[in-house]
């Protein structure tokens, strides 16, 4: 078909081909679009999460612990606010805490009272929900030592109180745990656990299980030796304490300790996998989330990063850092342990939430623990034996090359291994992890796990560091920046059964707030600019949003008020590690400020100011 074909003839042929192509494209587009909207059967009900009331009626409308329930689902069955009427949501009342630091707490609602805890100086406010405008019922100020602010690595935060038979239990920054009488706010007991001169602080929300208050310390960046302590809820006396490094007797490892993988078996691994004496300042702190399975009578919690960040100063697997412990809450004896990041190179603390679900895997329903991990994988682990059933990346990961399910070991990526005196570039995810402490929410209706997380990478240079008690023991200079696509935050709906991403919303700033799923098929989260958003749980369309006074890093909750109406509450007040540039008034010209976060949030100072306000939303009364 040489070029002798006449000019018009050739032009006409081109017309045919063009038309055909367009038609083809139309068909393909139709197919893609259709697949996306097929909502995964909103209502087919299979056994929803255990010990979790399914129907709205059964939900007690309370929010007695930050994770809503022992399974850490953060799901409220209330559905008065739903996809259709959420547009009308408006603030019912607000309350200013008077503190300008990072508000990471979850409000607690018990009976007709809401309890909130502020960042340092950790004041507790009880609001009387039965009266209009929820006036202050009582307030309690624990007066923690102000020097504790000097050893709090990532803003002087507190992640909330917990309620247990008549008492509100909080932890203070200077390492004390206090039980308050819920009605009067008087101090029932106060136990000092941490020592700020060794760099210890407490920022986590305690959890009460079978009358025992479980709380851990934080200070992985200060060379602290991590532990989890159980106190008697009534008297505050220490029941048991399990360290996360050191000899087996300190770690409460005994006869019935049966880890699934060979790498975690052995005696005194807490000493053998460290250079001599290094385990005494080895980190592995506990500052994240604890879950409890009453049937198996096991608590699950994660351990923090090994210290110091410069891995060359601590060769070996550094047991029991960056892993998940399963323990008997009564005696503290360990049942199993799985190390997520042996010899962690990039500060991936393994303290994120453990969502306990029963999921159909391999043809039968298995008791699993779903863990969206900082190293970028969503782990689905059999919570009875500790076996890793799957580990799939939910962000771009190049710091490791996947998990070898046979040995359970994370396969590191050699050329992303930091060295002293060398800048290693573009390590993804960054040190704060693909998703940090801010907890995800599970909806039994859509059977999706909603992850508020970040999309950031970093350059890293290790350096020698002196251990001086009470001063930072990091040994690395980091410079973080937005990952591929430039958006630093992502809100992802993840299907743990299909192990794929259902949908996602790209956010400009990193997402540092918790998530809330409700029976009305809505999911709530906040952005670091201060937008509080409600999105459709099935397809992620933003249905409603409200601009609060400061960036949101708190945990949204939902409760049924004394008047029977459904309320949504959130604490707004920028801070935490991601908001340190604003809450600490840092200078972003130094990219290594705030352990590298300043370089990724250079624009945050123009987008939000500090603040501290509780916002409670509800639908307008029926007209």
């Amino acid at each position: 078909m040489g070029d002798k074909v006449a000019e018009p003839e050739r032009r006409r042929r081109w017309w045919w081909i063009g038309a055909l192509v367009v038609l083809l494209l139309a068909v393909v587009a139709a197919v893609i679009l259709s697949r996306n909207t097929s909502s995964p059967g909103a209502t087919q009900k299979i056994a929803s999460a255990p010990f979790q009331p399914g129907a709205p009626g059964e939900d007690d409308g309370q929010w007695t612990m930050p994770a809503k329930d022992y399974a850490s689902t953060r799901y409220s069955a209330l559905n008065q606010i739903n996809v259709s009427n959420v547009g009308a949501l408006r603030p019912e009342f607000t309350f200013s805490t008077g503190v300008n630091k990072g508000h990471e707490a979850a409000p607690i609602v018990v009976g007709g009272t809401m309890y909130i805890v502020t960042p340092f100086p950790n004041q507790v406010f009880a609001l009387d929900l039965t009266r209009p405008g929820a006036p202050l019922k009582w307030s309690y100020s624990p007066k923690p030592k102000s020097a504790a602010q000097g050893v709090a690595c990532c803003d002087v935060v507190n992640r909330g109180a917990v309620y247990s038979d008549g008492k509100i239990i909080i932890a203070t920054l200077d390492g004390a745990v206090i039980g308050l009488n819920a009605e009067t706010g008087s101090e029932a007991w106060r136990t000092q656990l941490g020592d700020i001169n060794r760099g210890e602080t407490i920022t986590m929300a305690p959890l009460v299980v079978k009358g025992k208050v479980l709380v851990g310390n934080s200070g992985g960046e200060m060379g602290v030796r991590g532990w989890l302590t159980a106190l008697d809820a009534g008297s505050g006396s220490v029941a048991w304490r399990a360290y996360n490094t050191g000899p087996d007797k300190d770690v409460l490892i005994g006869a019935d300790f049966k880890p699934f993988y060979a790498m975690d078996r052995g005696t005194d691994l807490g000493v053998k996998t460290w250079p001599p004496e290094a385990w005494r300042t080895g980190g592995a702190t506990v500052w994240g989330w604890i879950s409890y399975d009453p049937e198996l009578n096991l608590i699950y919690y994660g351990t923090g990063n090994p210290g110091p960040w410069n891995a060359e100063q601590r060769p070996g697997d550094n047991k029991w850092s960056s892993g998940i412990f399963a323990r008997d809450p009564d005696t503290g004896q360990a049942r199993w342990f799985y190390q997520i990041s042996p010899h962690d190179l990039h500060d991936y603390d393994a303290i994120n939430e453990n969502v306990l679900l029963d999921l159909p895997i391999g043809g039968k329903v298995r008791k699993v623990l779903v863990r969206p991990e900082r190293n970028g994988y969503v782990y689905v682990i059999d919570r009875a034996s500790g076996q890793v059933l799957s580990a799939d990346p939910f962000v771009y990961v190049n710091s490791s090359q996947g998990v070898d399910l046979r040995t359970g070991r994370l396969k590191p990526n050699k050329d992303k291994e930091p060295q002293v005196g060398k800048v290693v570039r573009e390590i993804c995810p960054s040190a704060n992890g693909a998703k940090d402490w801010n907890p995800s929410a599970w909806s039994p209706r859509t059977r999706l796990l909603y992850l508020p997380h970040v999309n950031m990478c970093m350059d890293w240079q290790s350096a020698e560091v002196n251990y001086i008690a009470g001063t930072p023991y990091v040994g690395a200079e980091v410079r973080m920046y937005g990952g591929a696509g430039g958006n630093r935050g992502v809100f992802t709906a993840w299907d743990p059964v299909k192990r794929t991403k259902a949908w996602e919303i790209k956010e400009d700033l990193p997402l540092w707030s918790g998530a809330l799923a409700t029976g009305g098929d809505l999911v709530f989260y906040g952005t670091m600019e201060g937008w509080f958003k409600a999105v459709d749980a099935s397809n992620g369309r933003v249905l409603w949003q409200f601009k609060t006074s400061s960036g949101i890093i708190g945990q949204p909750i939902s409760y049924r008020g004394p008047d029977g109406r459904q309320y949504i509450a959130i604490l707004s007040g920028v801070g935490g590690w991601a908001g340190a540039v604003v809450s600490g008034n840092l200078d972003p010209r130094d990219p290594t400020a705030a352990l590298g976060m300043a370089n990724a949030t250079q624009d945050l100072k123009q987008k939000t100011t500090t603040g501290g306000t509780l916002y409670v939303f509800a639908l307008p009364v029926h007209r």
Partner: protein
Amino acid sequence: MSLRCPSTGKALLALAAVAALAGGCDRERRDLGASMPEGGPQIQTTDLTPGRGGVLPPDPRGQLYEKSAYHVSEGSRLFRWYNCSGCHANGGGGMGPALIDDEWRYGSSIEQIYGTILEGRPNGMPSFRGKATEQQIWQLAAYVRSLGGETPQASSSRREAMRSTPPRNQVTPPKPKGEGAPAVQGTAR
């Protein structure tokens, strides 16, 4: 960009007329462990002095440490060794406040910075009394002053590690000499 060592710079330029260059340039003087009058400087954290007068004269050693490139570079080494960089990073701040901006809660004169390092501050600054020696605290204070752009850069501001603080010529124009927090300035204002 002023010539940092004006007397020597001009002198070197007028090579033909080699005048007697007395005094030289103490930018480089290294008095190793030289015996300095013991005891730290007088420290005053506030500008408010009831009644007249009361403005402290600057301690002469402050000038000596601040202007000496050797002491400022020793100060930058100690800033890393004593884990100051853990809280203040490379001047941008972290747990501790930023040092390269012009907000000084407890004063920006070298005597006040010496006092902050020696005594610590209530909101988390540890006290180094008895830990760091006197000369070391002077060196640290001189380095913090140079971080804040209050004194000429000892040498290029590039660090062996990541280029954390931009090199001198990319720093935005010198910060306005705002009042900031109480700063006891030696010279009468």
